[in-house]
């Protein structure tokens, strides 16, 4: 093992961590506005990747296919909220969570029906040989992943701080009751949160699809890791991004440095970190108060 391999693992980690971050942001958006842990969040990523791959195969240009996929999954998110979450009304949070589990099952089933069980290919956004960074290889697609995530994070931050809808969402996240008194339609905000979560998930799925592969069950693992990242970040937006990146890098470094035969522990790494943090620093590593969260 040489230094450039460590750099290489860090690059892999930042890549997958960026996807965790996008998915974690989706969790945070829905959770801070509705209190629901949306178990279909990973499936948003899957749907985004599958729809984009499907459109590209139908010879749509990639940018159009990607945009349509993101919008379509955002619409799916909004429909999920309007169709079942809202009618469930004041059901307990566990009930609402089970509804999202049902949605996750549904999306996976539909995906297999529509696109079959085999992985589908989405070509890299730009072709080209890997770049060399400190002796490690940086693929063009890696740049797309990191760049897209950065743009999304900056865009989201502007959205929450500059736009009316964004400010309304932040207000609801801080205090739903007070926000309502101020004339903010909290129900519309919930719909918007699900749509936002759908869009974020879809973006994550689409950018990762060329380097991993897109198939019906890809969302399960991504969703769980995104959830862990969100918790690590104390259910706040900034923490979620950091949580995702840290989780990705730590995971890859552990997998990369583990001796042969211990690679199978990789998936447990995230949860060992999680339990350690919950037991010793329950507010997330940014030290937020548990349950407060926010955008």
């Amino acid at each position: 093992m040489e230094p450039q391999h460590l750099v290489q693992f860090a690059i892999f980690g930042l890549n997958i961590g960026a996807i965790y971050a996008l998915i974690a942001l989706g969790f945070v958006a829905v959770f801070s506005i509705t209190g629901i842990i949306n178990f279909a969040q990973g499936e948003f990523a899957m749907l985004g990747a599958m729809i984009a791959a499907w459109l590209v195969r139908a010879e749509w240009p990639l940018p159009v296919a990607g945009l349509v996929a993101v919008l379509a999954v955002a619409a799916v998110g909004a429909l999920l909220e309007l169709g079942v979450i809202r009618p469930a009304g004041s059901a307990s949070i566990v009930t609402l969570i089970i509804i999202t589990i049902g949605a996750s099952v549904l999306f996976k089933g539909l995906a297999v029906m529509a696109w079959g069980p085999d992985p589908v290919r989405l070509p890299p956004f730009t072709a080209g040989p890997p770049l060399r960074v400190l002796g490690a290889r940086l693929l063009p697609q890696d740049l797309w992943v990191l760049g897209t995530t950065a743009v999304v994070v900056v865009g989201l931050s502007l959205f929450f701080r500059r736009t009316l809808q964004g400010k309304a969402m932040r207000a609801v996240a801080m205090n739903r009751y007070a926000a309502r008194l101020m004339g903010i339609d909290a129900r519309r905000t919930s719909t918007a949160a699900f749509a936002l979560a759908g869009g974020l998930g879809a973006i994550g799925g689409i950018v990762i699809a060329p380097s991993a592969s897109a198939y019906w069950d890809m969302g399960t693992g991504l969703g769980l890791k995104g959830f862990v990242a969100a918790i690590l970040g104390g259910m706040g937006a900034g923490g979620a991004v950091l949580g995702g990146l840290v989780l990705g890098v730590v995971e890859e470094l552990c997998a990369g440095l583990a001796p042969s035969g211990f690679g199978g522990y990789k998936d447990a790494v995230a949860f060992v970190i999680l339990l350690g943090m919950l037991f010793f620093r329950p507010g997330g590593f940014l030290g937020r108060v548990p349950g407060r969260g926010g955008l």
Partner: protein
Amino acid sequence: MWGSSAALRIIPAVVLLATACQAAPTAAPTTAPAKPTEAPKPAPSPAASPAASPSPSPSPAAKPGAGPAASPAAAAPVGKPSGEPIKIGATLSITGNNAPLGIPERDTLLLLQDQINDRGGVAGRPLQVVILDDESKDDAAVANTKRLIQDERVLGVIGSSGSGPSLAMIPTAEESQTPLISLAAAIAIIDPPKKWVFKTPPTDVLFQQEFFDAWKEQGIKRLGLIHDTGGFGVTGRAVFEKLAKEQGFEVVAVESYEPTATDLKTQLTKIEAARAEAILNWGTGPGPVIFVKNARELDIKVPIFVSGGSVNQAFITNAGKDAEGVIASGGPPVVFDQLPEGHPQKAISAEFNRAYRERFNKDIDQFAAHAHDALLLFTNAIERAGPDKARIRDEIENTRGFVGMDGIFNMSPTDHLGLGKGAVVLLVVKDGAWRLLK
């Protein structure tokens, strides 16, 4: 994934037939919904009949009375079977990670069942193959085996597609004294030999030995292995480490991944960092495609190898250009059209492929071959032994010179596979197709 709690998937043969391009009317099953449906009355199918004309080519090595050519049914192609059906059970991985194996196996059994019935059945009675899906899960395969033996009262069981489920099924077969023919590669299935257990695919030892021979020839010493954590992958790792040690190779890296993994770049980087001179992937499902894709992305220069589990068209379709130059070891049926004239597997494979292509609109692969040979091993034994499980077992063990698609089987009490080294060839992807390497 969430919804698939039940262990069993029951595939009534009849309904599946509806999807095939066959003209035979398929009545909806009238039995209780859960019950595996009775096999269709072998309706004379104008489309299938000509293709299914019996010609399991008798090989010169076949002893009289042992090969399928000697079966009375084959001699009387138009005889109509009657009486109680002869029931053979099968548990296949039609869904889940091993679905690319299980689906051609299922199709083969359905086609061959019809062909045999068109030819007059088994010992004058209709053949019925009861197929269950085990979702590539070990415990489901065992539950299926129990069901086939207890409820369906089959004379023998075929399956499963994968090594894990097959190994798990062994105790059940032994305990219930039911002959079992596995369609999986792991040598552990038949070594040490178990009284009631047989298999048709070449062992992973045979598959891997071809690689080791090639590496020796090319002077490659440092080996890297990346395997999935399914039964096939894990047993394959053990074989790999054993063969490498015995034959003086240095294993510089062994990495594993979940069958559901979507990215193997970390593992590949580790193997590359260990300066392996050849990298072998041993796994089923989407893993090998990701392996090949990631290896190309990382610009890994050393030759890469995949297991026989990837020798099918789907691998090439999914991996695209990245598949070019990938080397695999597989059975001759995959490249039957490239085999020299007179090769014993050429005729039988071409023959079966015609009917297969006509019905399913795809070519046979080696999984089809495994299933084909397993069912014929059973029916040939039943022709000779009658419907008695113990005698069927004896007759399978007595099989000599049976020319199957996988090779020529010569079973014995110590060899419950009966295939020799010639059952495996090296293949390479060239211009979007698997080709014989030599």
